[in-house]
């Protein structure tokens, strides 16, 4: 029985994994299929996308037309349980721009843009974590992205090169299924032949954007999305992923073959009950559970890693939320994959006489170098797209078919831009299912129409808008971090985090550049901007945490005095302790982090297996 109660766990596991999202799910897959006994602890409830996903539900079937509320921040049907920008019973503290510096306030906002909180933190409490609703955007970091300091003198270099991680990107893309194309562009790596799935045709407004953006020298190319655009050959893929291991091959192939190809409908943010896109719950966990090597305890809120007399991790303490009992489980190895900030919290709360500043923190860097992604967006209304004939342009619901990779490497290197790092552009457009507020722009563009004219105007304007969202690299800085609040505890008695966060001029100037670019792209299509392009990046940029790419809080590196983890994401101070979420990131390239989290986790687990076999841990 793989889902177990606290009372039914084994006396000891080979590996305990804390968290079940992209990092935890990948780790469980690799380790359980490798034959070791794994316990996964998830702070939220069990969750089954096959049974629970509201696939074809329309907004009209939901309360309030599925609009955002303080209970469901991304709308009623979003695949988030007990979470969002706040999570019941689990407060966090942050500085606010409207309060005195160095005072901390409980985070209560449930709208990111415009918040006065310095940091806004998205969490969810469900099996699979944020992989259930994530954006599925799967971009490889490129060679430059691993050596940013070497290129421009800012931030930190990763302790290895792109070539080191590339084989793991290959594995992850093969297992999860990523559509995309190889374009041979600078710092935008190609995948090996037969790795990527075919990209769907662009939506019609994406085609129109591509044509007109070309005049500005801006490339529009197929996106890379963790969505199966066709069935995958389980046997072929599994054989390549697990050479010489017939059992692992069978488990993996069965998992892949149980997934169906995308049927070009329904919003991906709800999750997918035909398993067409990547969710830990539909891709990683089924084969891991089928191996018989994985036990999962849900509603298990981990508070501390326990340490033995030898100074090594002995297991973890968690609060069983159903019984409110404190439980200790033993493991030979502990992998934290609770999210960058949550894993840092666990380490900082693991204090002992031997480790008074928290576990794995002799460098003092746990919680430091907190990063998010730079985000800013603008919407355009394009007259040429008005009154098109009716056709189905929905595609993979809500997921972009095309995007713009960063294209100004040479200008930036020549110092012409005034900021150091790049961004890509995400495109939202097409004839998507109307939702609460999605036609709100009619008010201004029709200048107060009502009656039959209003209905005609709605037909005219529907499908004529395009939203451009920049997603850019943030450089780590000393002013952005999380630490334990000295006073506050959550509903389980566990001390909570408090946050400080600051953008540098590099990020705010980048956000202003995004707005200027989007304006020229929209006007290049003959369109008009809805809203106000900002020349002051501070007015354009999303708040820290708003893009939900929290990374960097347990950074890896080559120097034990300056970093938390070694290049295998293994704690310098505690050799049987690893981190497998976004925490080890040394930089936060404009490439959305999930694919890299999975690749790093896979590499970490290969290292774990090798070290176990050698008897080193």
């Amino acid at each position, binding site marked *: 029985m793989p889902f177990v109660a606290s009372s039914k766990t084994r006396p000891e596991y080979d590996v305990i994994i804390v968290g079940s999202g992209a990092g935890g799910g990948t780790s469980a897959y690799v380790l359980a299929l490798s034959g070791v006994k794994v316990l996964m602890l998830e702070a939220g409830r069990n969750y089954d996308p096959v049974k629970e996903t509201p696939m074809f539900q329309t907004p009209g079937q939901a309360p309030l037309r*599925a609009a955002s509320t303080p209970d469901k921040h991304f709308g009623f049907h979003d695949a988030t349980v007990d979470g969002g920008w706040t999570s019941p019973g689990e407060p966090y503290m942050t500085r606010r721009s409207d309060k005195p510096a160095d005072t901390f306030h409980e985070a209560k906002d449930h709208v990111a843009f415009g918040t006065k909180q310095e940091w806004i933190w998205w969490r969810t409490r469900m099996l699979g974590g944020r992989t259930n609703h994530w954006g599925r955007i799967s971009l490889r970091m490129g060679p430059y992205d691993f050596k940013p300091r070497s290129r421009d003198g800012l931030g930190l270099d990763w302790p290895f090169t792109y070539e080191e991680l590339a084989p793991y990107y290959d594995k992850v893309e093969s297992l999860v299924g990523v559509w995309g194309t190889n374009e041979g562009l600078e710092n935008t790596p190609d995948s090996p032949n037969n790795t990527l799935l075919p990209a769907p045709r662009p939506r019609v407004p994406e085609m129109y954007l591509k044509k007109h953006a070309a005049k500005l020298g801006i490339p529009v190319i197929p996106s890379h999305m963790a969505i199966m655009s066709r069935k995958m050959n389980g046997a072929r893929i599994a054989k390549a992923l697990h050479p010489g291991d017939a059992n692992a091959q069978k488990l993996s192939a069965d998992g892949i073959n149980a997934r169906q190809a995308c049927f*070009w409908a329904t919003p991906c943010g709800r999750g997918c009950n035909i398993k067409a896109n990547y969710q830990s719950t539909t891709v990683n966990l089924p084969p891991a559970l089928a191996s018989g090597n994985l036990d999962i305890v849900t509603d298990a809120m981990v508070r501390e890693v326990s340490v033995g007399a030898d100074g090594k991790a002995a297991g973890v303490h968690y609060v069983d939320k159903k019984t409110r009992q404190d439980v200790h489980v033993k493991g030979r190895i502990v992998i934290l994959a609770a999210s960058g900030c949550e894993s840092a919290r666990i380490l900082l709360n693991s204090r002992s006489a031997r480790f008074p500043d928290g576990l794995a923190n002799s460098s003092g860097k746990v919680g430091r170098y907190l990063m998010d992604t730079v985000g800013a967006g603008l919407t355009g209304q394009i007259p040429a*797209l008005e009154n098109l004939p009716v056709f189905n342009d929905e595609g993979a619901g809500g997921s972009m078919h095309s995007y713009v990779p960063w294209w100004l490497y040479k200008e930036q290197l020549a110092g012409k831009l005034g900021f150091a790092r790049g961004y890509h552009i995400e495109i939202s457009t097409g004839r998507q299912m109307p939702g609460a*507020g999605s036609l709100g*722009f009619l008010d*201004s563009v029709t200048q107060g129409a*009502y009656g039959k004219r209003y*209905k005609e105007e709605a037909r005219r304007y529907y499908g004529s808008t395009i939203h451009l969202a920049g997603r850019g690299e943030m450089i780590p800085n000393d002013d952005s971090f999380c630490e334990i609040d000295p006073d506050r505890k959550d509903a389980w008695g566990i001390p909570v985090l408090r946050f400080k966060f600051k953008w540098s001029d590099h990020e705010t100037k980048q956000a202003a550049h995004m707005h200027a670019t989007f304006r020229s792209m929209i006007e290049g299509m003959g369109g008009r901007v*809805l*809203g106000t392009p900002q020349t002051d990046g501070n007015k354009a940029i999303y708040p820290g945490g708003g893009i939900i790419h929290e990374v960097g809080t347990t950074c890896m590196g080559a120097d034990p005095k300056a970093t938390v983890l070694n290049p295998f994401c293994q704690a310098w101070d505690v050799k049987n302790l690893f981190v497998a979420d976004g925490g080890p990131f040394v930089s936060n390239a404009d490439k959305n982090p999930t694919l890299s989290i999975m690749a790093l986790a896979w590499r970490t687990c290969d290292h774990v297996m090798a070290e176990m076999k050698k008897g080193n841990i």
Partner: protein
Amino acid sequence: MNITEFPRISRREAIQWVIAAGASAALMPSQAFAADASAAAPSGKPYGTDPLLNHTYHPGELWPLTLGPDQRGTVVALCDLIIPADDRSPSASAVGVPDFIDEWISAPYAQQAADRAVVLDGLKWIDAESGRRFGRPFAGLDATQQTRIADDIAWLPKAKPEHQSAATFFALFRNLVTTGFYTTPAGMKDIGFIGNVALAKFPDPPKEALAKLGLS
């Protein structure tokens, strides 16, 4: 519903398809009219952070509704003034939009509570104005009379100072009717959304659309 609401309802700012950006946001004060005691606070419970998603909800199922018969009559008349029946689709009231508006203004959340005050006071104003000008409530006016009032309040930037509050109400109400109508099957069909159906292949766009855009 504030039209800046959209950024709140989708993944970050635009997982769905279009936002109403800040252009009109400044036109929407949170309190259109002076506070009025008529808007008693809603009594229902929020649906919580882990509601059942795979379920079809109906207005009144989660929290009690508000509108009495007279208020409802005014809401129906306004709904159908904004979205009347035509040869393509039925009117807003024929597909349940008044029920949605009642659900919205009865919801136990802060945004909806703010909208509740604007809507209830707006309904009161429009009936009073109808009585003052034509001696009958709004629902009893003929189309020409309704239009004469609506034209004064349909577009906030052009409304006279004495109509600013009413125009703010009308903008909110039109947004609610728009959301309510175009999220129904009839509204989706009217506007030309034919997705939300499983397809073996993502279809090619019509040649006519590509030709119009110079993409063929």
